[in-house]
């Protein structure tokens, strides 16, 4: 995984709440056994017409959002299916940052989607509703608007003459993970002795029944 420090790129907006992972990448593309090749199929049902041509009404097909790398959308992005293919598709399409609003106490991103994003270096930025509304407005007003997302400083800055920037909160370990591009399995394996020790005491301590190999089917 590449490390994430600061990203500058063009903003695209998608004004819909509750975008589920079935929309991000429909089922027919989950049959692949590879980790690549999903970018073309991102938002497939919205992005292409029945004849396979790009749907001109779909936001990401509009010239003003060409080559955008920051997607700004609404609450509960990535809900539904656990498919990590959704994150692979967003990243392989060319997106580096997704920005969405917290709505009251409701987090901006669905849990599993958020976890999958971290593993793939896709930064999820949670702002409040008024801030996201402002980005929507500014993106509508200034064609080709870019933003700089600085993870170290936890700040989104719109690249305008008048400085508009927003601070965002992020979990400390998620931030470190993204900045350093860590191999999480490698890190956990450094704790192998603790896992060994845990396994020795676990069946008796919790009386969780661990299957014996003799119980295994033929």
């Amino acid at each position, binding site marked *: 995984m590449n490390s994430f420090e600061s990203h500058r790129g063009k903003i695209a907006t998608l004004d819909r709440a509750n975008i589920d992972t*079935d929309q991000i990448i429909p089922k027919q593309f989950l049959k692949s*056994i590879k980790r690549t090749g999903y970018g073309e199929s991102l938002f497939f*049902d919205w992005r292409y017409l029945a004849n396979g041509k790009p749907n001109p009404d779909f936001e990401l097909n509009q010239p003003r959002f060409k080559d955008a790398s920051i997607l700004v959308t609404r609450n509960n992005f990535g809900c539904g299916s656990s498919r990590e293919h959704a*994150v692979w598709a967003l990243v392989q399409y060319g997106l580096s940052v997704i920005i969405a609003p917290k709505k009251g106490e409701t987090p901006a991103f669905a*849990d599993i989607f958020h976890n999958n994003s971290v593993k793939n270096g896709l930064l999820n930025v949670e702002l409040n509703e008024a801030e996201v509304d402002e980005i929507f407005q500014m993106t509508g007003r200034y064609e080709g608007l870019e933003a700089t997302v600085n993870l170290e400083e936890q700040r989104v800055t719109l690249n305008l003459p008048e400085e508009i920037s927003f601070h965002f909160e992020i*979990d400390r370990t998620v931030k470190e993970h993204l900045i350093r591009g860590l191999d999480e399995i490698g890190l956990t394996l450094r*704790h192998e002795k603790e*896992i060994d020790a845990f396994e020795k005491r676990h069946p008796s301590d919790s009386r969780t*029944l*661990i299957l014996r190999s003799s119980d295994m089917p033929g």
Partner: protein
Amino acid sequence: MGKTLFDKIWDPHVVSERDGQTLLYIDRHLVHEVTSPQAFEGLRLAKRKVRRPDLTFATMDHNVPTEDRENIRDEISKAQIEALSQNCREFGITLFDLKNENQGIVHIIGPELGLTLPGTTVVCGDSHTSTHGAFGTLAFGIGTSEVEHVLATQCLVQKKPRTFKVEITGRRSPGVTSKDLILKLIGTIGTAGATGHVLEYTGPAMRELSMEGRMTVCNMSIEAGAKAGMIAPDETTFQYIAGKKFAPKGKEWEKSLQFWRSLPSDPVATYDRELTIDAGQVVPQVTWGTNPGMVVDVDGVVPSPGQVPGLARTDHERALEYMGLKAGTKITEVPIDVVFIGSCTNARIEDLRAAAGILKGRRVSKRVKVLVVPGSQQVKRQAEAEGLHKIFLEAGASFRESGCSMCLGMNPDQLQPQERCASTSNRNFEGRQGKGGRTHLVSPEMAAAAAIEGHFVDVRRWK
């Protein structure tokens, strides 16, 4: 301070803690063909092994055809299914494949094989892993990177979720099912209403549910955004588990019972959030839109934009357009083309019995195509032993082999554009059951009655 059911499972599974992150031990890892190939490939590339193949169990369910399973015509599906067989051989994992008598939807076979046990942690690369929480299990869905992490380490790095108690008081009226209770909850708190939380369902209306009914409730916890859903184990749970293939036996059973009886939340335990729903006020539910939170009472109408709290007007209008519905239309006047009775939500034997109870001695409407897909080979055999398959066939429905089928249409069972389906599954997302298809989520009883009439009916008043 007392401990919740969640605490009593989480705490003893903590391997280590650092910086607010927990290394959590996983007791059962269930694997299927769609979200695992890249994880196995990752292991190969890094020259890693599966740490506990004895705690890892696999089946094939998402891609599998429900007719003629010997000849899978979709070459890409076939390759994915074969990749799982190959990976299980290479890494020494038990696989319930298409020839196995225990094959079925991963969340149906876990419980019916006794792999799902109270007090344990269960994960699977599938969001509906929350199903297993019905046993007093901490069970949640993970992505493929996490699947690889569990394969390699039998652990997951987790941040402790918050807890959310949902007490369901009162008694359900006849015709109201566990599906209606969970749809009502999602309609009340929204599809992100429980994000970051583990739901614990309590109260008399939960206690009186069968294990099948409890699994339906926990299954759809993810549709409210929850990390997991769980229900404390009780005598109903123990009766279900007793004698199952992998369940503890003899002395181990007695020891297990003692442990399991200690799991229910302490009376003084506190939760981060709490909500109460009166089951007596719940009526059969039908979704009208494109997520499970867009749901109304069967005796209601399709709501108008601006009427639904928290739903933006534009999102509401888009949902109506996609669904081909006009605001104000009575739900019972919405005609349907297809009925799907199946999925990890509602394809257990009790669901099939409920549907058969409605269909017995009747014929489905000429305009409706009806698909009954048992959740597993065990469910299928049981249904056949009880003669349910004959009821379905005589009513004009088709009765198939087990798998996920039209819940997500990765196999040939798909809706055509604009086809409208009464479905016992869990997601009414755009295109979920087939591109352009329109899904209404309902209980098995509601689906079966709609199959006969060709439109939705209120099963409470229908004869």
